[in-house]
């Protein structure tokens, strides 16, 4: 029987679990934490990543506002009232001259009483960097006068023009960023606390707590927000200090924002409280607060954070609108909305259109938050 197959046994070691063994990459993937997976998913969403980067730059800038802005918040240049933007040039008559601005010649037109500025092509004013300029109290507590960029000696550097008191619009926008961006953050934190507490209680206990909170939410959601905000902020006493007004406004913004979050928390809790691990926790003697905070909330924290990110822009817009109408923040606090009050006068805007420029960062921020929040929401469910 020569056609019989030769019996063959390999001498290599045999691992019956070889098929199930994971390569290092697979292992990394399967054992990744939820947050890590969220990060991976978020990274694939290009628009969200760019928006996140923009937001990071914006938020980072508020840490060093004083250093970035060429002038101090309130420094006035009385001989440069309503000066037009001076664009930064690099080439003077075809030759490279480094970043510089042309000087401005000022003339009051006696027949129209309009301030007319002409660009003086002869006056090349090179910008200085890391230079000494207006003095400021840095928020960490020390005094300094170093700025990223400032005008040459005796020259001016109004990148985005000046306003009716001769204050540099660019510097003021930078200072406004600090207030406008934090209003949304503080507001969302307050709203987060309210939403989780109320929604958590409603979802976990059910019954009359749930009923009460649901009816409250329905009523709050059926009210037009802006008139209500107006009414509430008109109620803030005029005698309050600027800081108190600031926190008052954030509280008002949060008061109308929590219902959305509370609803999300409630509907999730209603389903989750029936799970076995929840029963187990309560059998072991955990109190409701611990069950909600330690066992239930972490299940959908990522979702909550994502949806909270999406409601920050509406808060920023609301603050801008309120301040614009004169019922929100008031000078000396400077936010983008406060800056836009200058643009309320149509005649002024027609003559000095650069007063509308504080609107640009508002739109950029809101768009960035929207895209970032969208990406975050998609990423929040990495198991999909």
């Amino acid at each position, binding site marked *: 029987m020569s056609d019989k197959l030769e019996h063959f046994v390999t001498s290599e070691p045999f691992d019956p679990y070889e098929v199930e063994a994971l390569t290092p990459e697979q292992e990394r993937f399967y054992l990744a934490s939820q947050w890590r997976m969220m990060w991976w998913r978020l990274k694939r969403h290009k628009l969200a990543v760019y928006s996140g980067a923009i937001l990071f730059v914006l938020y980072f800038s508020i840490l060093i506002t004083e250093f970035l802005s060429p002038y101090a918040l309130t420094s006035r240049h009385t001989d440069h009232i309503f000066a037009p933007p001076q664009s930064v040039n690099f080439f003077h008559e075809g030759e490279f001259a480094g970043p510089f601005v042309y000087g401005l010649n000022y003339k009051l037109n006696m027949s129209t009483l309009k301030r007319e500025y002409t660009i003086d092509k002869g006056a090349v004013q090179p910008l200085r960097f890391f230079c000494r300029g207006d003095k400021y109290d840095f928020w960490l507590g020390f005094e300094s006068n170093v700025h990223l960029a400032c005008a040459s000696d005796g020259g001016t550097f109004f990148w985005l023009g000046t306003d009716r008191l001769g204050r540099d619009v660019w510097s003021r926008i930078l200072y406004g960023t600090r207030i406008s961006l934090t209003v949304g953050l503080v507001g969302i934190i307050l709203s987060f606390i309210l939403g989780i507490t109320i929604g958590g209680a409603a979802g976990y206990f059910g019954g009359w707590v749930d009923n009460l909170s649901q009816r409250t939410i*329905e*009523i709050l*959601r*059926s*009210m*037009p*927000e*802006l*008139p*209500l905000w*107006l*009414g*509430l902020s*008109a*109620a803030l*006493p005029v005698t309050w200090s600027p800081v108190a007004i600031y926190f008052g406004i954030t509280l008002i913004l949060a008061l109308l924002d929590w219902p959305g979050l509370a609803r999300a928390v409630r509907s999730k809790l209603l389903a989750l409280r029936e799970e076995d691990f929840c029963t187990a926790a309560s059998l072991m003697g955990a109190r409701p607060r611990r069950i909600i905070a330690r066992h239930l909330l972490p299940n959908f924290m990522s979702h909550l954070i994502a949806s909270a990110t999406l409601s920050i*822009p509406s808060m920023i*817009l609301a603050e*801008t*609108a309120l301040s*614009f*109408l*004169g*019922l929100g923040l008031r000078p000396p606090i400077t936010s983008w909305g406060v800056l*836009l009050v200058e*643009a*309320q006068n*149509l005649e002024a*805007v*027609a003559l000095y*259109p650069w007063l*509308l420029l504080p*609107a640009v960062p*508002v*739109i950029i921020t*809101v*768009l960035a938050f*929207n*895209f970032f929040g969208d990406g975050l929401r998609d990423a929040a469910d990495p198991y999909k």
Partner: protein
Amino acid sequence: MIEFLARRILVMILTLVVVSALVFVIIQLPPGDYLTSYIAELQSQGENADPQKIEFLKQEYHLDKPMWQQYLIWVGGIVQGDFGRSIEHNLPVSEVIGDVFVNSLILNFSIVIFIYIVAFPIGVYSATHQYSWGDYGLTLVGFFGLATPNFLLALIMMFLAKKFFGTSIGGLMDPEFENEAMSFAKALSILEHLVIPVIVIGTAGTAGMIRRLRANLLDELHKQYVITARAKGLPRGRLLVKYPLRMALNPFIADIGNLLPQVVSGSVIVSVILDLPTTGPILLEALRAQDMFLAGSFLLFVSLLTVVGMFVSDLLLAVLDPRIRLEGGTSR
């Protein structure tokens, strides 16, 4: 259906009661009342406030009674059509509000109509042509519409109109019609002036509506019954109108609940900028002057607009969708 209607009306009335209480608390929040500031103003002018007059005003406005009694008097008056007196204008509130309220109604109604007319075809197009250039372009425009606050849009529009046409676009009609009776020319003028505010206020709502309609319709289009219908040879257009569109229409109407507060909010602030004779500017002025009866009535009115609007949308929904009226409550 009658049971549904009754329950819905009951809920609406309850909501209004709570809203009125809330409004009353808000207008009572500022420290002091109009009377104290009035006396202070008199004194700053060197006049001594006549104690008799103050006493009279106090009684007239019931400022000497406890809070809850003031509330009851206020609400009681409103139910009988008496909204109190505006201290700032020295007129009954109903006279200050009258026309203005009608204007607000016209404006907000036009905006809602505009949003539906524009959002519907665009939303359907975006969903049926997903990931086409048209879809991307419209989505981008929509995002900008959502991100630009409407008061900024109003400012920019005014700026552009001033710059390129040399006209001012404020007001609700040309000044020469202001005191005339309603005529065709006047109606035309109003229509002309409505265009800008309607676009400005409606943009954000339209953008949101398009996004939601697109998402809803896409959900439906990916369902199996659509494939089945296609497989048995139903033409695309007929299929779309017959099944998925009807399903996607439901949230479209239910959404008026989200839409109305947004529209009313927007019209308040845009009216201030465009100087429209609606509730917005007067509400703002009243709030600044702490003219509480006037401000309170306005707050109540704008809330009433949304609450009644939602009631109407619920009714529409019930007519459209038997599941809702049979279950007696929203199905969600």
